[in-house]
């Protein structure tokens, strides 16, 4: 692949007491690639996201973003470089209306600099972004406090927040979990659109069918170790993957 390298993860290791949550993981991510990360519960997927975004400090190994080391930086510095993430359990600013949740990232110095030194009409941009992720424009939902939004909207809001920060690399931690089939179907085109705009995306997912349709490459974790990496087709045929999944996850049948 001739596209520039966006993210390099080298020998990343994190121990919690006697448990090695992430055990020497390596991978490289190129610009505009969509990487899926799968694995059974407790295989280290979320810890990997936390390590890359600075929420957890690695015991060993390093993370390079566009050639510069970001492991060891605090999360807010990583975010300002253009690496955004979502949370598995949606974490909005509960008391703010949905669109005001986006005014916070839209007020970031990063957005200010990228927009050529102006914030523009932040409320309007926020509402545009919400519409893009599937909020009905001019409906009550965009003005409703995040605390009272239904789950599906909260997940959309998580994604919209990354978009508002104008992140180049987005780490989406189980964005589809808890969504209905119809909701997932409406989110897939949004991810596709982000890819067409040149974004690089890491998706941690349990919804394998949808993930395999979107992802260029899939990385499989088990007990913190990378046990496979390849195209969705290659990965699904590997016996180790079937074993890891069938060993602990009954849901693979309908995934």
């Amino acid at each position: 692949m001739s596209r520039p390298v966006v993210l390099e993860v080298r020998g990343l290791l994190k121990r919690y007491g006697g448990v090695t949550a992430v055990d020497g993981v390596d991978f490289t991510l190129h610009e505009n690639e969509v990487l899926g990360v799968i694995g059974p519960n407790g295989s280290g997927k979320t810890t990997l996201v936390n390590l890359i975004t600075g929420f957890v400090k690695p015991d060993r190994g390093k993370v390079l973003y566009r050639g510069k080391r970001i492991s060891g930086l605090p999360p807010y510095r990583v975010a300002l470089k253009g690496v955004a993430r979502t949370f598995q359990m949606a974490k909005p600013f509960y008391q703010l209306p949905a669109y005001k949740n986006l005014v916070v990232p839209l007020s970031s110095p990063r957005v200010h600099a990228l927009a050529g030194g102006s914030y523009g009409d932040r409320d309007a941009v926020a509402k545009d972004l919400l519409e893009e992720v599937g909020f009905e424009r001019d409906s009550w939902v965009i003005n409703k406090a995040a605390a009272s939004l239904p789950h599906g909207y909260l997940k959309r809001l998580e994604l919209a927040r990354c978009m508002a920060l104008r992140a180049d690399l987005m780490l989406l931690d189980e964005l589809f979990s808890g969504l209905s089939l119809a909701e997932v179907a409406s989110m897939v085109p949004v991810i596709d659109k982000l890819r067409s705009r040149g974004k690089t995306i890491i998706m941690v997912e349990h919804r394998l069918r949808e993930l395999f349709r979107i992802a260029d490459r899939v990385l499989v974790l088990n007990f913190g170790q990378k046990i496979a990496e390849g195209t969705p087709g290659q990965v699904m045929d590997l016996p180790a993957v079937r074993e890891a999944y069938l060993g602990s996850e009954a849901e693979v049948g309908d995934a």
Partner: protein
Amino acid sequence: MFEATLIYGLVNSVILALVALGFNLTFGISGVANFAYGAFYVTAGFLTWSGLNQLGLPFGVAAALAVLITALMGALMYRYLLLRLRGLVVSEVIATFGVGLALLELFRYLGFIGFEYTLPVMIDASVDIAGVVVDAQRILIVVVGASLAALLWVFTRHTRTGRAFRAIAQDEHTALTLGINTDRVATISVAFGAGYGAIAAVVILPLGTISVGEGYNVLVNALAVCIVGGLGSTVGVIVASLLIGYAQMITATYVDTHWMMIVSLVAILIILLIKPSGLFGQQKELEERI
């Protein structure tokens, strides 16, 4: 008598609100219960006194310096002590209480005891409101209290730092993913809280003397107002200040002034029994717990 209770009750309520605002601001934003708050209040008083009487500074300069130094002390306490303890609530309380205890008892050790430690009133005059004589200092307290509350409201809604305050108050992790340096914001919030306490000290202390014991009283009053109002809620501070402020004044008028502090403690007890999250508190899980 009734008019006097009405007016002095309002002044007393504003004093409580002024004292509680800083404590509440810090807690609401960073989740830190600053138990050194009363000590910071008294420190600001003694610093102003020293500036006036030992350095011969004009009142305005001495007061401004005292507020700045107190705010800086708050920032340093957060940066070098609390940052290492973040998330360990009991440790935070013990650490800040320890700092407060050390500060207050240091003043006692240095000999800051006696009736000569007073601050001058800013305007020596009084006015007649509905037949009740009210001195200018008390009117100034009401004006400063209202202005600080209004300033805080504008600040948290219309400035970038203020919005960052509200963001980390609601979800610190999400604020981090959006490039907000939450440690810095929390440091500023503790400094602001201490600074608010210092401003309260500079305008309220001229009514009495500066004493070590006042540090403990201020802490109890601030805690009472914040717990009754609901920790972190500005509306709660205002409502609880009025409730406790008038309850104290009525007690002082019809029972005895010595019972005023008891009112604050009883208020804490009652609210913890009936509605532990406070009148306007966000921690509703306290009530949902079985």
